[in-house]
């Protein structure tokens, strides 16, 4: 066992990324200490909609998403806890007034197949017979059978506990106030005066990352935004896949999934105000109402249900909505994994796996060229 203040790797941030990185680093025999401001999995990882979907992501992100897929499938065995992962498929649909999106489904399916993601294109009667809850405005769909959904409230904490059982030191209620590299070691100071040291530092702090990267001379232009999520009362379980309406208009985007317990979780639409420094986010009622307008067009029968709860959280968005992953450009031994822009739940376990591989071996088989933190410097110069 390691002393709590010295380990091979220090992870700052106990979301799904940091917790799974700690877990996979232990699998590689590295000693790890994870510092979390509050409790593991309490922020974006714990309050998101719970989509475990690959389709719809930028093609260059599919290798990472594909790497996550088998991890989700064996998560229960890996963590020793059920995180309510249902591999019930993910259905992406478009409405009649946007036939160009149906055409884009076909192109995407061809290109995704080359990365290993199989998609089934559906239209007309076939689509409606298979998914009878879809509204009359739905034109076409793209179905990913080996995607699904899971309970975000359970996943990151389960990773944290499994990492702890595997020997990682998980320190909750540890707000990092300063980090610097002194000689070969990073020295991280918490607000309550504790000091932690390690030769490797992984910043996995989501919307809170910029304050840390700034201490190493790297800018991370993150904007915190709050998802708008609602959940209905439980009704008999009958909708298996997670369903997403694809549209270029942000206010029209809507998605829903039914959990085994019976409740239907609804997400999408306009995002609400989100204050990282206070760890508070708010759902705006006008956003909830807009979402309920859209979901009834997508699945009219949902109009007969009641919403019993709404919530939001703090998600860190990059300007191009792509994450920052990889080694620092200024400081050796420093690594980044944050800025997943509201789409980091499905990839989360793979991000932990990739970062552990990168830290352990110095390289990773998953291409990360599009994730460099340097891309923002380039823009500043240009």
């Amino acid at each position, binding site marked *: 066992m390691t002393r709590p203040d010295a380990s091979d790797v220090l992870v700052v941030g106990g979301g799904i990324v940091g917790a799974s990185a700690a877990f996979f680093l232990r699998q590689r025999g590295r000693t790890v200490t994870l510092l979390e401001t509050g409790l593991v999995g309490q922020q974006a990882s714990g309050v998101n909609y719970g989509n475990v979907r690959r389709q719809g992501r930028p093609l260059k992100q599919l290798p990472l998403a594909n790497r996550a897929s088998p991890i989700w499938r064996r998560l229960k065995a890996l963590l020793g806890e059920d995180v309510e992962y249902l591999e019930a498929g993910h259905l992406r649909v478009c409405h009649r007034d946007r036939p160009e999106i149906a055409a884009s489904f076909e192109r995407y399916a061809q290109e995704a197949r080359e990365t290993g993601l199989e998609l089934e294109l559906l239209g007309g009667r076939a689509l409606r017979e298979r998914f009878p809850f879809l509204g009359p405005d739905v034109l076409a769909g793209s179905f990913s059978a080996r995607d699904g959904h899971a309970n975000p409230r359970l996943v990151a904490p389960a990773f944290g506990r499994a990492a702890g059982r595997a020997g990682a030191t998980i320190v909750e209620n540890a707000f990092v106030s300063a980090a610097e590299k002194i000689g070969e070691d990073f020295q991280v100071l918490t607000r309550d005066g504790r000091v932690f040291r390690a030769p490797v530092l992984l910043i996995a702090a989501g919307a809170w990352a910029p304050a840390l990267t700034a201490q190493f001379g790297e800018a991370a232009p993150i904007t915190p935004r709050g998802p708008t999520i609602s959940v209905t009362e439980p009704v008999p379980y009958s909708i298996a896949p997670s369903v997403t309406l694809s549209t270029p208009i942000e206010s029209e985007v809507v998605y829903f999934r039914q959990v085994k317990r019976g409740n239907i979780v609804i997400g999408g639409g306009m995002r609400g105000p989100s204050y990282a420094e*206070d760890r508070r986010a708010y759902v705006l009622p006008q956003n909830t109402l807009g979402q309920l307008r859209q979901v009834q067009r997508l699945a*009219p029968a949902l109009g007969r249900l009641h*919403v*019993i709860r709404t919530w939001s959280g703090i998600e860190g968005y990059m300007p191009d909505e792509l994450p920052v992953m990889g080694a620092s450009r200024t400081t050796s031994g420093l690594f980044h994994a944050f800025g997943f822009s509201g789409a980091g739940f499905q990839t989360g376990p793979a991000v932990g796996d990739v970062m552990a591989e990168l830290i352990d071996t110095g390289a990773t088989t998953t291409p990360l060229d599009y994730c460099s933190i340097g891309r923002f410097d380039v823009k500043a110069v240009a």
Partner: protein
Amino acid sequence: MEPPASGPREARESQGAPDEDDRGAPRAPRIVIVGAGPAGVRAAEALVAAGLRPTLIDEGRRAGGQIYRRQPETFTRSYAKLYGTEASRAAAIHQTFDGLLDRIDYRPETLVWNISGGRVWTLTGASEANLAYDALIICAGATDRLMPVKGWNAAGTYTLGAAQIALKAQACAIGRQVVLMGTGPLLYLLASQYLQAGAPLAAVLDTSPVWRRIAALPKLLASPQVLWNGLVLTGELRRAGVRAYTGILPVEIERGTEGGVAAVTFETARGTRHRVECDAVAMGWHLRPETQLADLARCEFVFDPASRQWVVGRDACGRTSAQRVYVAGDGAYILGARAAETAGSLAALALLQDLDFPVNESEIRVRHRELAKWIRFAAGLREAFPWPQPQAVAMSDEAIICRCESIAAGELRRVVRDTGAAEANRAKAFTRVGMGRCQGRYCAHAGAEVIAAAAGVGLDQVGRLRGQAPVKPFPIEAVEPAQ
């Protein structure tokens, strides 16, 4: 790490209209009162007296609130029969309200389901709307405070409040052989009302021992008349020959072959076990304030060790930490219906002061003195009829703690032990306790006690479930579908 409850952020998020009308003239302040019980009616009265026209939004079909709930128009029972010892107060509130009707904007059968951006978001039937305010008085009232008992999820188990509503609004009893269980003045008031209505009572089971009442007498003497009313009620029970026990420990609500309530078993203070056959049980341990709306309005909360619950932080007049948001009545702090009238007036007077209206200072002083009496009396009631915290510690693992989600106390304890979830929202995330359609109204207090005991921390450390809109289930079809 709560943000300041009100400030520039709320202004940024605000949807509120400017302070001028279409022609650029300054307009009268738009004041919204939520709740037309004793606090809301007295607040409206004070605002109307100052020349304002407040909007009074109420969930009920008729004004009056819970304790002074009005019967349907077609019912003809007398005030004395309906309200017993509280008849004159009920009549006064109803008359005051009727006199205000054409000088306020009254919106009955309207639920405020959210408060955000300087607006109340409402639902009337299946129609949603919103309304901007310059100042808001929340008089949301209270619901029964509950302690789960093994078997309380059997059909035929009610709250004391619900059993009373059945009588007042529907003129029916909850069963043919009714057990009333819990503690507090409502237990005896309801027993007397059931007796007067001719509804048979199988037993009245009080979890607090008699010596507590005697010890609390000095404080209860703050209102000799209400104390006397209480004594009259218990005397009626004795004369009617109702089986009444004090200092009991509930053991189980038994189910019959059809799944409904069949009997209640309990232990007396001496430890002997009794079983009372019945077909309905009503239970409650005082009241808990309805605080969700104040939470959504971003008011700060404080832990009240005396009543072992979180309440909205407020000054003596009901000013909260949120700009121009006031709380009054049992929704602020459980002091009873008479105190709610005083608190409603006080909150309105404070609001008028804050808006630079002339206010009679001596009236404020008189109200403060009245309120001080009720605060002392309520402290006596709390001591005489204590919240049965030891019952939470001793609660059977099999007792369902969260009725909405069917989660047993044993499951909550296991998760607290296995995961270290010692904070209310964390335990909710892992177990679903408090995640159902009641939003924690039924389970949050007892759940927090179970968590505190299982984790070995203080109740204040467990925290409170954050309020989440909608405060009651919101029908999706209240919104027009997109085209």
